[in-house]
């Protein structure tokens, strides 16, 4: 299994749906995708991680990098995740304090300004 990425616009936000494995091998693809969106002027991102099977610290680094990029444009980066195995990784690394994490895309959109 590799990494799958797809983007769409909903409720004025850009949803990035990520699936598969995010690790040192695939994380550069996610980084490129986030950089491309910011370059296109899309600064309010929701990364949907419900189909992610594996996440490592390289993936976390890419998400933190994405957050810094959108914040430089007064933007936002929110996550959608309900998988305990993935949530645990955010908790261990203290990143639950850095990213707003929502149970669904609808909730993420509703909670946006």
């Amino acid at each position, binding site marked *: 299994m590799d990494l799958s990425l797809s983007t769409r616009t909903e409720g004025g936000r850009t949803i990035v749906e990520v699936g598969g494995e995010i690790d040192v*091998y695939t994380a550069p693809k996610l980084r490129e995708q986030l950089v491309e969106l910011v370059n296109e002027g899309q600064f309010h991102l929701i990364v949907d991680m419900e189909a992610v099977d594996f996440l490592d610290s390289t993936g976390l680094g890419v998400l933190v990098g994405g957050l810094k990029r959108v914040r430089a444009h007064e933007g936002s980066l929110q996550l959608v995740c309900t998988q305990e195995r993935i949530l645990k990784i955010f908790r261990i690394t203290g990143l639950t*304090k850095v990213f707003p994490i929502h149970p669904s895309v609808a909730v993420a959109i509703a909670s946006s300004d």
Partner: protein
Amino acid sequence: MDMRWTVHLPRDAASVPMARRLLVGAMETAGVDREVAMEIGLALSEACANVVEHARGGPYSEYQIRAGITGDCCRVEIIDGGPGFPPDRLRGSAVAVGPGAENGRGLMLIRAMTDHVQLSNHPRRGAVLRFEKTLRWRKDALVPVS
């Protein structure tokens, strides 16, 4: 039943998912509980990513993974041929990772996923990261557990 594997891999990012799938697959085939196997897979991925990222540019092009199950304990060693860990790392100094940092969370995750972690340098050359974890077995495990 005791089992041991040794895998030699090219020092390339593509080796990391390969190593993880091999080890997680072997664990699951032996009957290790899936969550435990996935935690070992994450610890291994972090250790391998460290080899691929930090030992960059050296003349050596391979690294080695030695994994084994003895009773209820899984031991994994990741051995590279690079310059070794810097002395402050070996002394166990905690590396401060700010919320905005894009690196430095790997060892934190290895420690959280396993029971015991040891960093050392090979007497001749290279870094050795060892970790251990107590296993849980599925009810239908192939390996009879004493």
